[in-house]
Structures are given as C-alpha cells and as structure tokens.
C-alpha cells in the first residue's frame, strides 16, 4: 500500500521538473524570431554586411539602389528580396551570388554583369549543393551565365527575365544552366541572347514549362544525359541552332512551339539518341528543318503540326521503332527526307497537305497510300548541292517521270491511311 502512494506523490513533482527543463531547452535552442534586415540603410549599407550578420530564416530586403558587389555567399537559409530597382552589379568581375544554404529564396531583384571567364562559369546566381531553393521574379542583365544550378535538388526557377548581351558564342554562357540536379521546376522564364537559353546536363525528374527562349546564339533548349524530364508549353523561337536534345530516355515534349530557326544546321527540334519518349501536340513552324531524328528509337510522335518548314521531318536510317500518328504536315517544301530507301518506323493516319487521293467511302482516310518521300528529297539527301534546282523545270520533269514510271521513290515508306483533313 505504501508503495503506490509513494509513486503518486512523486509523479507531479517529476512532471513539473520535466516541463521546466523543456521550457529551458526551448528558450536556449529555438532561434530568435526571423528578423527583417533593411539592406542599403545606413546601418547595413552593403549586401555583404547583411549576409555576415544574418541568422537563419531572416529576410534581407534590399532598398532601391545599385550595389556594386560580387563573390557573395549565402550560407544560412534566407529570403533575399527587393524591387527591380535594387540592382546588384557584378561589374563584370567574377560571380555575383552563390547559394549554398538549402531553403533560400531570391526574389524580385535585378542582377547585372557577372564576369566573363575562361576558367570559371561565373553566374549571377549559383546554387551549389543546396535543396529547396527558389529563384523567382528576378531580372538578369548582361550576365555571362545567368542562373546556374549544380548538384541541386527540388529547386524552383520561376518568372525570371534573363537577357544576355551575347555577340559571339565563345564569350557567352547559358541563361539557365543545370548540372547534376534533380526535381527542378523551371517555369515561366524568358531567356534571350545567351549561348544556350536553357541547358540541362545530368538532370533527372525535372519540369520545364511555359518558358520563352529566343534569339540565343546556339540552342533555345539543350539537354543531354537527362532522363525523365518534361518540357511543355514552351516557346522556342529564332535560336541560331534551334533546340537539341540528346542521349536521354523517357522524356515528354508536349505542347511546345518551335519556330523560325533558319540556317544550315538549325533545327526546330533535333533528337539524337533519344528513346522511349513522347513528342506530342507541338507546333513546328517555319524552320529549315522542323524535326530531325538521328539514332532515335521507340518514340511516339503524335498530334504535332509541322507547317511551312524547308524539311518538315528528316529521319535518319539509324532511327528505328518510332511511331508517327495523327501529325499534320502542312505546306512544307519537303515533308520527309531520309537517307535510306526503307524505314523501320511506322506512319499511320497523318495528314499530308500534299496528298491528292480521294476518300470515296467517306471514312476520313484516303483510299490510297501516301508516299511522303519524293524523288527530289532522295537526291538532295545524297547530293545537297542539288537543292539549287528546287522548283526548277528539270525537277518538275523528274517528278512527272516518277509519277509515270517510279524508280527513286521508296515504296516501303508510306502512310497507308492518310487523313483527309488535318487532325491538329
């Protein structure tokens, strides 16, 4: 009887002691509430000074003005924000801001002139080895590299305007550059006048959507060794070499526009060594070559519109097992060119504006197959210089001769069920 009573008397005492300890512990260990540091005020004139005294979770608000600073480092998670009239000017010397603290947000600032270098990829904002960072609503002007993510994960780059001043590729870096990253979101940015607008290398499970990438010196989008990424609702326009995606599998390219990429090695979209991927609902408009495929295997290419291109599609013989269905080929100079007289790819139910067959049973499909590779396309693939004869009398004659007595046109490449009306 004495034993339980003894226990009862001890319990409240022990509990209050524990609560007291816990309170003491909380007082010591929980950080002071996040502070707001006004950068540019007399007390904190520079961003460097603010970064030195900042505690994790603080907000650094930059007052309007020009901050001529570079080689800054964020080592604790912060929110750094301001208006676009708060300008951090790297003065062309080195990198501007490096983030190595996970959970940092950079919002609404203007960054200007990170330094050109042959030894270092100097960026305006570099995220190195950090996760859960947000880079949003910033303006980047005349930087060597813009936003550079290396060994980063779960970061978001959204709503930034990144304008380079590239005159030559050699002296210009990429707008948004990601290397060894995963789970990124790159959304609604505008990138122009860099070497490559958006560049991914060794990136996984990432999303690139609603961006505009135009007038870049090389590619609007360039990625390699980057699996399981989705590229959707982007506009790629007037980039000197178009868009190139290489050495990756399981990617989705959907609802993008590839437009106005002209030049001897310019492609709306170049696929090299891409497999098990889907290219769907895109528009390829007015490119020298709309879609170029080399060593691309087992992809689904459907519901795309290819219009007013020099070559709508160039399909190299190294590409196999691709299915082309419900695409619309409209008013291209050449619909399909290939370097082989047969193909291990399948064409079904595409619309070809050049098709002249009938649909007498009115099932929506032409009654006779369409042969998309014409004789002239075969010849020019072999002898590119012949292109100067395009639309000449001799080519008309050749096409007429083929119509009567086909020799060159490969019968093995055909769409057996061409659509009578465009699907997209």
């Amino acid at each position, binding site marked *: 009887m004495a034993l339980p009573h003894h226990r009862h008397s001890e319990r409240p005492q022990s509990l209050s002691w524990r609560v007291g300890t816990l309170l003491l512990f909380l007082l010591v260990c929980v950080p002071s509430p996040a502070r707001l540091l006004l950068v540019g005020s007399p007390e904190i004139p520079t961003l460097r000074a603010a970064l030195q005294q900042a505690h994790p979770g603080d907000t650094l608000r930059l007052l309007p003005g020009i901050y001529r600073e570079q080689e800054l480092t964020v080592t604790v998670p912060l929110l750094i924000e301001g208006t676009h009239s708060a300008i951090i000017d790297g003065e062309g010397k080195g990198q501007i801001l490096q983030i190595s603290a996970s959970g940092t947000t950079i919002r609404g600032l203007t960054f200007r002139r990170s330094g050109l270098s*042959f*030894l270092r*990829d100097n960026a305006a904002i570099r995220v190195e*080895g950090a*996760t859960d960072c947000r880079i949003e609503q910033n303006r980047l002007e005349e930087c060597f590299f813009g936003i550079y993510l290396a*060994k*980063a*994960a779960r970061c978001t780059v959204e709503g930034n305007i990144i304008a380079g001043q590239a005159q*030559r*590729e*050699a002296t210009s870096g990429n707008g948004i550059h990601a*290397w*060894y*990253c*995963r789970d990124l979101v790159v959304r609604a940015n505008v990138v122009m006048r860099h*070497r490559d607008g958006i560049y991914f*290398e*060794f*990136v*996984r499970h990432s999303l690139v959507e609603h961006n505009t990438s135009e007038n870049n*010196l*090389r*590619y609007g989008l*360039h990625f*390699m*060794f*980057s*699996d399981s990424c989705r590229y959707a609702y982007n506009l790629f326009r007037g980039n*000197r*070499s178009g868009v*190139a995606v*290489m*050495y*990756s*599998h399981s990617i989705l390219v959907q609802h993008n526009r590839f437009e106005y990429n002209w030049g001897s*090695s310019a492609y709306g979209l*170049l696929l*090299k*060594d891409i*497999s098990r991927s889907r290219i769907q609902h895109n528009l390829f408009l007015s490119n020298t070559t709309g879609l170029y495929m*080399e060593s691309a295997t087992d992809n689904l290419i459907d519901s795309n519109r290819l219009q007013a291109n020099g070559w709508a599609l160039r399909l190299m013989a190294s590409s196999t097992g691709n299915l082309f269905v419900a695409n619309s080929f409209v008013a291209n100079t050449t619909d399909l060119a290939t370097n082989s007289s047969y193909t291990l790819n399948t064409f079904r139910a595409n619309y070809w504006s050049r098709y002249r067959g009938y649909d007498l049973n009115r099932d929506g499909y032409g009654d006779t197959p369409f042969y998309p590779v014409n004789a002239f396309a075969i010849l020019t693939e072999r002898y590119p210089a012949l292109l100067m004869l395009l639309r000449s009398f001799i080519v008309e004659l050749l096409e007429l001769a083929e119509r009567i007595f086909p020799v060159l046109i490969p019968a093995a490449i055909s769409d057996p069920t061409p659509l009578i009306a465009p699907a997209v």
Partner: protein
Amino acid sequence: MRWSIFSVGVMGAGLLLIAGCQPKPRPIRFGEEVCAYCQMGISDPRFGAELVTQQGKIFVFDALECMVGFEHAELIPVERIHSRWVIDFSQPGELIAAESAEFVFTVEVHSPMGLNVYAVPRGRYVQDPELPRGRVLTWQEVVELVRTQWREGPPRGSPTPQTQ
C-alpha cells in the same frame, strides 16, 4: 647547263607543291560548325579537337572525347588518319598536336560532353597553378578512359545525381 637549272627549278617547285599539299589542320569555326560525332554546335573554345585525314579531309569535334568516340565507333579507318589535333585549354581556340599535349582529368571544369578532360601543351600543367587541378593523363590513357566510359558511345541517360 641552263636547261638543268630550269629542271632543278621545276623539280623544286614540284617539291614545294607536294609539301604544300601536306594535309594540315585549320582553325575550328566556333559558333558555326557542328561536331562530326555528336552533332552538337561547337561553341566552347576551351575544348575541341580536329582530325585530319591522309586526303586532307577535316573532321571537327566539340570535345576531344568525341574524336576518340568517332575513331572508336570505326567511322574512319585508322590508316586514313593523318593527324589528331586538340584545343589548348590555356589558349582558347588554338590547336596543338595531340602527341605534343598532356591531358588533365578534372572535376573543376565541365567539358561539352561531360567527361571533363582538357588538353594543354606538355609540361604546362605543372608550370601553371591557375589551371584547374586534376589528374594528368597521356593520350593513350585518354583513349582508354573514353573507351571504358563510352563502351557503346556516349551514355544514354543520366547517372544517379550526387545530391545530398
């Protein structure tokens, strides 16, 4: 006598012509040319390579690993190769003979094809502490590196990213 001087002159001119026809490299046009192996636009003047055939035909590459890959894929028979040239990392845009170069395998710079090897004239790496640090390789070791890393050509797909 006069005739023989004339003939010597002709022979000399002939020799000069033959010497003039020796296949030789030309500068890579960065920003304009595409790699003969991977099709990428060549844009980074710190990297690149060039292969000259016995007939004087020239193949340009965006990175030296692509030149090795090109040979490894047997896109050219080895007896047709006249010389191999690589870009000097310390003199962007300048080609040097592959046999007079040394190669550095590094994590500090990223080459266009991701194997991260750069070339400098032999002996330069030790002299110049500004150059990104790494492991010095011979040409033969570079060839071995590319062949083991790219057994079937460049990798298809991404390795597991090393994020924390």
